[in-house]
């Protein structure tokens, strides 16, 4: 075994001081202070009343805050010190693929020739951008094994809804009126929500005891009213749907289409392609597989790639390469229309292309291989104290269960998760997927080292021992964090969504 001397991967950052509450921008405000500085334009200073009718003027000024630049900097720098991040330590949140975000991709997004471009500038002045988007579309099509793609959806969920509208357009063009979409019970919540917004009804397919779609029930659920099925593969418990070919065949035979929720693409990128499994629509979370940073909750990007028969319906305008080698936009009458105000989250798309460019075919394959390696190593390493919900080879994440710990010591999954914060790691995903009791889903990703995995396993083992010997301390965890356990119920009961709310 390699060198384990260093406790790798922990956010072993430490208090600079005590645990004092940071005031809000509004509490720091003092009337008359200012930070802003604008250009001296020399434009005539017409009186506001001379250019805007009084009926439109706000009699009061909207109060923002009045702080000095120095205090502004201190405030947000201090807030940043109260925030866990990938750059500080391991973030093994299952289903979220919190891998390292290469700084190179940030540098690409910071190029003025990319981020200084107005989205409505004509194609002749934005050839670089259109080529970039066109190239990314080609790459995503190759990676998924599809025929065309749209880059517009701003996140995975937007991709889902877009995909469902494409499925709808397809069936409608064939004059078919299909009303149901099948979804396994393990699916991510965005899937059913998107189905509803897509105008379909959800039919839930239960998982079998192997954590997979129950093929028999699936087949029984199919029929002429089924528009399609949404699957994640590997599914949300981190297991590969081994009968995917049979599933695809059955769905296709009944006239339905297959939607691939690409949130878990990191497990298979470069190794398998959703297209080869029989999927017709695939969304990708670029902020997962392609490492664009998650920004504390976004921005992401959720491009959708489709098989040949769905290409005519893709949102437009789409980037195209013209006969003369230059680039332009194309829009077709059969398109479902645009799903974003402009061209999608362009700077996120640029980052993803940068990531794909440096990795290439072999690099992406290595990503999947090592993501799966890490998850399995962790699963086996922890099996002695925190058993897997399904005891066999997993893909890029492993779903463990604290059910027996809860039963024995009254310590729940959430307590283990909070305890892990004290250990310097981010928590795994808790209570998702819903089908696993006291689920703790770990997704280490390929960028974490063996030393970090070992340190994480040791921390979890320590917590399990603590659950046995001192369960109370875990109910009270975390204590060493900027704030201790937060009263979530109170937040909802006495909603205070702004500093002005009473």
């Amino acid at each position, binding site marked *: 075994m390699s060198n384990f001397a260093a406790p790798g991967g922990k956010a072993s950052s430490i208090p600079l001081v005590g645990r004092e509450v940071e005031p809000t921008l509004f509490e720091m405000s003092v009337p008359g202070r200012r930070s802003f500085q*604008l250009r001296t334009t020399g434009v005539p200073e017409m009186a506001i009343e001379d250019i805007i009718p009084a009926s439109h003027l706000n009699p009061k000024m909207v109060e923002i805050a009045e702080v000095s630049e120095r205090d502004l900097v201190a405030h947000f720098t201090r807030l940043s010190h109260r925030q866990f991040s990938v750059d500080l330590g391991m973030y093994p949140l299952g289903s979220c693929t919190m891998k390292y975000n290469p700084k190179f991709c940030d540098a690409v997004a910071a190029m003025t020739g990319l981020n200084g471009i107005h989205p409505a500038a004509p194609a002749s002045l934005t050839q670089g951008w259109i080529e970039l988007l066109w190239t990314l579309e080609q790459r995503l099509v190759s990676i998924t094994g599809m025929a065309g793609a749209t880059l517009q959806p701003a996140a995975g969920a937007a991709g889902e809804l877009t995909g469902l509208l494409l499925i709808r357009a397809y069936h409608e063009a064939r004059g078919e009126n299909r009303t149901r979409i099948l979804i396994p019970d393990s699916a991510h919540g965005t899937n*059913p929500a998107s189905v509803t917004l897509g105008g379909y009804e959800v039919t839930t397919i239960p998982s079998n005891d192997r954590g997979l779609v129950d093929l028999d029930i699936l087949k029984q659920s199919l029929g002429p009213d089924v528009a399609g099925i949404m699957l994640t593969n590997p599914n949300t418990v981190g297991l590969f749907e081994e009968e995917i070919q049979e599933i695809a065949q059955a769905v296709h035979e009944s006239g339905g289409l297959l939607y691939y929720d690409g949130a878990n693409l990191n497990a298979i990128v*470069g190794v398998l392609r959703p297209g080869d499994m029989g999927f017709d629509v695939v969304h990708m979370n670029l*902020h997962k597989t392609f490492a664009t940073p998650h920004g504390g909750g976004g921005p992401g990007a959720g491009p959708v790639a489709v098989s040949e028969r769905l290409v005519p319906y893709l949102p437009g305008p789409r980037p195209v390469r013209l006969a003369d080698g230059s680039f332009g936009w194309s829009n077709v009458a059969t398109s479902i229309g645009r799903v974003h105000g402009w061209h999608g989250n362009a700077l996120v798309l640029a980052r993803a292309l940068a990531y794909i460019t440096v990795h290439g075919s072999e690099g992406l394959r290595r990503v999947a291989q090592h993501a799966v390696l890490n998850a*399995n190593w962790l699963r086996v390493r922890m099996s002695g104290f925190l058993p897997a919900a399904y005891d066999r080879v997993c893909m890029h994440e492993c779903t463990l269960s604290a059910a027996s710990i809860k039963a024995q010591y009254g310590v729940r999954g959430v307590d283990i998760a909070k305890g892990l914060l004290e250990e310097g790691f981010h928590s795994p995903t808790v209570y998702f997927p819903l089908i696993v009791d006291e689920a703790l889903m770990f997704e280490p990703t390929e960028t974490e080292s063996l030393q970090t995995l070992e340190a994480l396993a040791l921390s979890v083992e320590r917590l399990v021992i603590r659950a046995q010997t001192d369960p109370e301390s875990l109910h009270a965890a975390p204590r060493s964090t900027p704030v201790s356990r937060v009263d*979530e119920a109170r*937040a909802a009961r006495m909603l205070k969504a702004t500093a002005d709310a009473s």
Partner: protein
Amino acid sequence: MADYIPHTEEEVADMLGFLGMNSLDDLFAHIPAALKLSQGLDIPSGITEPDAAALFNGYAANNVAANLLCFAGAGAYDHEVPPVVRALGSRSEFVTAYTPYQPEVAQGVLQAVFEFQTLVSRISGLPIPNASLYDAATGMVEALNMAAGSTGRNKMIISSGIHPHWRQTARTFAHGTGHETIEVPLKNGQTDWSQVDCADAAAIVIGYPNYLGVLEDVSVARALADKHGALLIVGADPVASGILKTAGQWGADIFIGEGQPFGTALSFGGPYLGLFACTEELIRRLPGRIVGETVDTEGRRAYVTTLRAREQDIRREKATSNICSNQTLMAVTAAIQLGWLGTAGLREVALACARGAHYLQEQIVTIPGVQAISDESFFREFAVRLPMSSETAIVEMAKRGFLAGVSLSQLCGESDASIEGDLSRVLLIAVTERRTKAEIDAYVQALREVVSQ
């Protein structure tokens, strides 16, 4: 090839040994062989970062628009983003964090978003903001869904003063929701409500200022909404709140807006920031995340995402929205940028935009053949009809160093209910606080040349 994987070959061998496996392929042994790629993906081999940098520098260099003085707007504006905002907004703790699922280690993002929400509430004049949507276009869709849910109706009356892309986006999603979207034409740059039947409407949607920059009398829309029991959705330019009445002051039930002007670069259209706020009554239908204040076990003030019961991970198909990842980093940046602007700065920016736009408009209409398309009041943007195709004019102006504006034929297609008559000669022009008198004068001079050629 770049590689961000730490494992050495020996470590991989060690780890496989621990798993009782011989090769990485064994990890995929349970997958049907027919599915596995026999060759690699059909994409180029990986290259190193510095090699890739050369490639991307090439893309950047081909965007000649980067070197033009920007007079384009249409919802995307060239505002000052000072170094201090860029420095703070790019701190890696904000950039590389996930959605704040564990509030104990996410107070940084949570508090920043709470401050953002407070600011959105103040700018909109409405009490309940959310923690961001993708952009204004999809934000409007969320607002329509909210109106449908609240009224049990599905007829959407949308002014054509709403940005054409927002309207197009609404039409796309209406395929799923089954909404009927009715677009109300403009007359002289303002919504002409006279012909529209608002009976049974779920929502009436108006832009303020509208996408042509024109100030509309929102009270007419409010009265219509009252009369027919519809919700009033106001899509407002958030910068305008520096001087103009807020959506809330006009009586809006829902405010939507594009947050790009607050600290986000033009970025070829994204990532931008969907602003959203509504009345207390609508709270249970709020789409997406919301951060609330609470306390920790020791009574210390703390923040957490709340009212989660509305969200898709709990309510699944009955959720108020499917939104999950949104645009948090842009929201954090907007809070920083607004903190930098402050009360006085927001007002000064709004004023400078309005003054610059009015100064330019006064000059531009002195060019023979150039006419304003409306004689109504406007804020910081206005449209003119040129004696030539606006697309051609833009190309010619680019040669002279200007991004002259947005061509309406490019923005809307062949025709649009917002413009009476031929679109192809209409140019939409915006001025921000970054444009100087000298630049504006040079612009007018250049346009004079271009149209007289």
